[in-house]
């Protein structure tokens, strides 16, 4: 396992974001904290989400993701701290204004089972006081591929289809900012893929998306930036930069046969800061620079008579980043 960078670096990209800076933010949270009863659901969150980006909100069970969504969505009042959502201050006086500009797809879609898909959407179209109700409803249904099921009672739909109705409902009011709370949980791979495609389409249309998920592949694929939460914010950054930010550079070295004296070889090469042997017999070396150290390692190994099978830069996925952060945090079991 490569060494984890500690200290201020970890939150270095707090403000770094996609696109131009000092634009108004879709979400701007400052020291936001929420307690539910005696329990701290999330603590001291400060982060920004820019218009037009897909922002991933990752964290283990109980990390506070849903509570954050509910708080930013004006359902719960923050215990302390401030936030602006779509440029409006988050407080009880402004909640109607915020709610008309955003929408939330909750963890469970919450549909009226005795009403048809279309009747469910009709109710919400009226609540949003939409013009061209019929057209809006049929567009939403089309976006989630549900047009053929519009007359079915929601109570008869499968989980995945219900999820899609929830999504269609969240699209009705053309939100500027869309919160999706684990939109693909419980979906089969094809249905999940369809949701991913929809998210990409929405992003292309300029919708800002706040996506909470457990699925790191999903975050890696869809999100411009991610935040990792475990009651407090552990890190925020561009998805593709996280790995670089989190881990020191490291090399993986594999040889055909056992190295007699690894310390004799690795310690003699400049730029190797530390090394360790992995369970599969390979070695992981933390180095100052891949380009200058790798050739020297190769040479040293050959000179020592080793048959080199592989030397390469160790790659870390978002999963490594996540596990490193959440794992060192007690695995989310609090």
């Amino acid at each position, binding site marked *: 396992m490569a060494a984890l960078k500690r200290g201020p670096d970890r939150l270095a990209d707090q403000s770094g974001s996609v696109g131009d800076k000092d634009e108004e933010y879709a979400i701007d949270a400052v020291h936001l904290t929420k307690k539910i*009863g005696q329990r701290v659901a999330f603590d001291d969150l400060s982060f920004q989400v820019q218009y037009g980006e897909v922002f991933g909100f990752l964290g283990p069970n109980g990390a506070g993701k849903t509570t954050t969504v509910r708080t930013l969505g004006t359902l719960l009042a923050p215990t302390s701290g401030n936030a602006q959502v779509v440029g409006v201050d988050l407080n009880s006086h402004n909640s109607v204004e915020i709610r008309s500009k955003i929408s939330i797809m909750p963890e469970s879609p919450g549909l009226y089972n005795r009403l048809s898909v279309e009747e469910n959407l009709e109710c919400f179209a009226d609540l949003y006081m939409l013009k061209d109700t019929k057209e809006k409803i049929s567009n939403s249904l089309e976006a989630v591929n549900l047009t053929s099921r519009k007359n079915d009672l929601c109570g008869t739909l499968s989980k995945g289809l219900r999820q899609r109705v929830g999504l269609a409902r969240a699209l009705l009011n053309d939100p500027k900012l869309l919160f999706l709370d684990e939109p693909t949980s419980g979906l089969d791979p094809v249905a999940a893929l369809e949701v991913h495609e929809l998210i990409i389409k929405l992003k292309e249309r300029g919708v800002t998306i706040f996506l909470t998920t457990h699925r790191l592949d999903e975050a890696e694929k869809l999100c411009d930036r991610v935040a990792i939460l475990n009651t407090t914010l552990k890190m925020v950054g561009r998805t593709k930069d996280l790995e670089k930010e989190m881990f020191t550079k490291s090399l993986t070295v594999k040889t055909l046969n056992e190295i007699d004296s690894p310390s004799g070889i690795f310690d003699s090469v400049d730029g190797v800061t530390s090394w360790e042997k992995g369970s599969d017999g390979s070695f992981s070396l933390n180095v100052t620079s891949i380009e200058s150290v790798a050739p020297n390692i190769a040479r040293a190994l050959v000179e020592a008579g080793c048959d080199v099978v592989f030397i390469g830069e160790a790659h870390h996925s978002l999963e490594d980043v996540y596990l490193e952060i959440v794992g060192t945090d007690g695995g989310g079991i609090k």
Partner: protein
Amino acid sequence: MKLHWRRIYAITKKELRDFRRNRFIVATMLMLPLIFVLIPLVGIFSVKGTVLTHLEQTKLGISLLYMLLVPTLVPAALSAYSIVGERDQGTLEPILITPIRRDEFLLGKALAAFMPTIAIAYFVYAIFLAATGLFGQSGVANVIFQSSRLIIQLLYTPLLAGWSIWACIAISSRSSDVRVAQQLSTLASLPPLVVVALFATNAITPTPVLALGFGAILFVINVLGWKLVSGIFNGEKMITGKNNT
């Protein structure tokens, strides 16, 4: 602030659709009034003669009182479920994240319970009046068609329904359990009936002025009830089970 009737009606409409397709609710709505029209009719036809004794008058009063149980109990059953039921089926959160205001939401809920109740209660009363007019003894008909009695039935039907609805929505929006809400609601719907019972039994003579006066009081209570329930409605508590800290 201006009320948005489109939002209010959206709630009422989906609620009525939901009732119509709920076999349990439909059965209750049909059964209760049936019972409450049969019992008073039996009472009426057991009274004979043209000049009624005090006891017989009281008996008729109680028959009429029976019929006011319709606007009291029917909406109690519907409203007790209204908020806590919505929460249990997970639909409260999606509603509360739309721009609808709390008072609009609650008014929509109240109207949905009010409309079928009133339709059924007046229908039952119409049957009762028709049966009395056609087949009742003239002495009985005289009492039943007394103006103060008519006022009480016609006026109190919506007013008692209103009381019942607001009391039960209040309970529903403070309960964590549907069954508890249902039980408390039946109790909470009854208090104004006590006054009506005093009229019915002639413990207080129901002059038109007195009947209208008490009606006016009930009306004010209904309007205040809406405001009060909107005030105590706590979306955060409904969703998390905890007060805002």
